[in-house]
């Protein structure tokens, strides 16, 4: 029998209620809508989608930071929400997150040393101050901030964005996690520093057998990440997964009309190539409001191929040529 996957999402759904102020009626936003997937030990999963598609909410659900409205979350085969206190605490230690903005996720009035060590001491990874200092220095060396003595006493305001993102990585691995959600972890970094940060993440993965849920809106970054580190790509639209495939196959040969449109729209850093490309065919330029998600296939209001069935029936993720695609006409595009 195969061992249980590290993380398993079964029909995860998260509904937020909004509004209900003044004259406005209360609205419901289904940020995540019946999403199922697995992440194996040491596997990368890239979650791609535009702003507001629910990708960050899904990431937080898989960490147990948010409770789902329905569906369940399993960690090594065990339901996270029926765990006892001790088990849940252990899970929370094993599952870590790296935020987009390192300056707002690390306390500005603490030194790097003060930010790195409390979690290690509390989780009894180290004993005493001397050991904590040594371990913190080791972590900084691991993430390429050398010599560590130069950085441990510094405050975040004296560090660059690239350096701070390395600190957040160091802090995430400080408690020996096996699962890390990287939520737009390199988006804030400058172009010249992004690849270095991605390479570091993949390097740490090999050393510590980490699994990543790599959340991003950037398909070019996604391609680099899964080509170098392997894994699968999941494309999300308005709360649902529309396409899932291994490696960079989704980016090379997109099947779902939404993925196709995204890829046709992404700018290419090559003046000749980018000017030859045609505009993606879409019925509407603007994405629907989150409170007014279309019926049936959520993409039907913009999809150039939509027919009657797309308005009525919700397409399930189906297997098509080693790919999972949620489109009634997937065969036509495969």
């Amino acid at each position, binding site marked *: 029998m195969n061992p249980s996957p590290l993380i398993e999402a079964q029909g995860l759904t998260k509904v937020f209620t909004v509004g209900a102020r003044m004259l406005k009626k209360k609205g419901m936003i289904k940020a995540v809508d019946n999403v199922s997937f697995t992440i194996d030990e040491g596997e990368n999963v890239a979650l791609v989608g*535009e*702003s507001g598609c629910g990708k960050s909410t899904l990431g937080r659900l898989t960490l147990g930071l948010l409770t789902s409205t329905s569906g369940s979350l399993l960690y090594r085969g065990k339901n996270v929400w029926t765990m006892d206190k001790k088990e849940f605490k252990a899970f929370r230690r094993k599952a870590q997150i790296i935020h987009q903005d390192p300056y707002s996720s690390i306390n500005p009035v603490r030194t790097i040393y003060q930010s790195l060590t409390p979690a290690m001491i509390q989780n009894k990874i180290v004993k005493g101050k001397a050991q904590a200092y040594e371990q913190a220095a080791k972590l900084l060396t691991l993430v390429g901030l050398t010599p560590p003595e130069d950085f441990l006493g510094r405050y975040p305001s004296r560090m*660059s*964005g*690239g*350096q701070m993102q390395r600190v957040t990585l160091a802090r995430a691995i400080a408690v020996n996690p096996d699962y890390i959600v990287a939520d737009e972890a390199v988006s804030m970094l*400058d*172009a*010249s*520093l*992004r*690849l*270095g940060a991605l*390479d570091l993440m993949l390097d740490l993965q090999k050393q510590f057998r980490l699994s990543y849920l790599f959340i991003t*809106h950037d*398909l*070019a*970054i996604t*391609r*680099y990440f899964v*080509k*170098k580190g392997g894994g699968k790509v999941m494309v999300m639209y308005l709360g649902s997964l529309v396409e899932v495939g291994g490696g960079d196959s989704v*980016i090379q040969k997109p099947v779902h009309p939404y993925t196709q*449109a*995204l*890829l*046709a*729209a*992404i*700018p*290419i*850093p*090559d*003046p*000749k*190539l*980018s*000017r030859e490309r045609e*505009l*993606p065919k*879409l019925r509407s*330029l*603007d*994405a629907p*409001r989150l409170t007014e998600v279309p019926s049936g296939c959520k993409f039907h209001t913009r999809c150039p191929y939509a027919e009657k069935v797309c308005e009525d029936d919700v397409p399930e993720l189906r297997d098509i040529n080693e790919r999972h695609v949620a489109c009634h006409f997937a065969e036509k595009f495969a």
Partner: protein
Amino acid sequence: MQQKAILSVRGLTVEFRVPRGILTAVSDLDIDVYEGEVLGLVGESGCGKSVLAHTMMKLTDPNGYIKSGKVLFEGKDVFALSKKGLREYRWRDVSIIFQGAFNCLNPVMKVFEHMVDTTLAHEKASRDDIKKRSMELLKQVRLDSAVVLNRYPHELSGGMKQRTVSAMAMLLKPKILILDEPTSALDILTQKFFIKILRDLRLEFGLTMIFITHDLATIAEIADRVAVMYGGTIVESSGVENIFYQPKHPYTKALISAIPSIVGDIDKLKPLPGPLPDPVSPPPGCEFHPRCPYARDVCSKVRPPLEEAGDSWLVACHRWREIN
């Protein structure tokens, strides 16, 4: 072909007083903008690209000041303009779409009132006239003009607001439109269409555009000519194909090969080592020398001048002849 410079910047230095000392945001910078072109101004955060754009409009933050240099628009000195002259220069000669401008629409004013406000701030016009003009412009940016004019900002999506702001920027038919990171906050699909709209606007009005971004891929798509900024100054400028296919400056080379794409060989990509320079205490000589694989002694001592390296091709590097 000799092109006519419509806007020229000469020896511009802009500094800011910050708690740590004096921050040099723009440092002895020269650049020409030619009539009818789309100039892509590209650089990483803190390289001074936004400050340069603001200074072109003679806008500086309270803690910043123009230390030296000139901005010439069609030969006239922008910094020497009277209050009235400056009011005419802004929006009528040159207008700017600030970064995040679409979030700066007044939430309690309908789009039409924004149009009236903007127009009347710079010239006299009747409401009917403004309405006619706005309708036309909104149509140009592919918005349903009759509907959008009567909407409040919160009733529009991000992409619609960005297009509204673009129409506002065009109200007084400026000769130059400066766009500061206009696509960064937009979704990929919205971005693509917005760029198409900008292209159409340019053809329609014979507009000169200065397009500022950190995103090289977008620059590849829209710019005719590219100026690369590093440490507050221009390190290389040339036609877009030269910059992407045969860059001469070591920084441009490194930057181009550090950009992931959905096509091409990812094994050829190389991360750029080292941190960006600190604008309060920049490295001496060429600011790129601590990260440059070709650096020699001279690079850490003498700042390289912008030299002609071909037909309208400028490079600021001591060693560009040897390394290319």
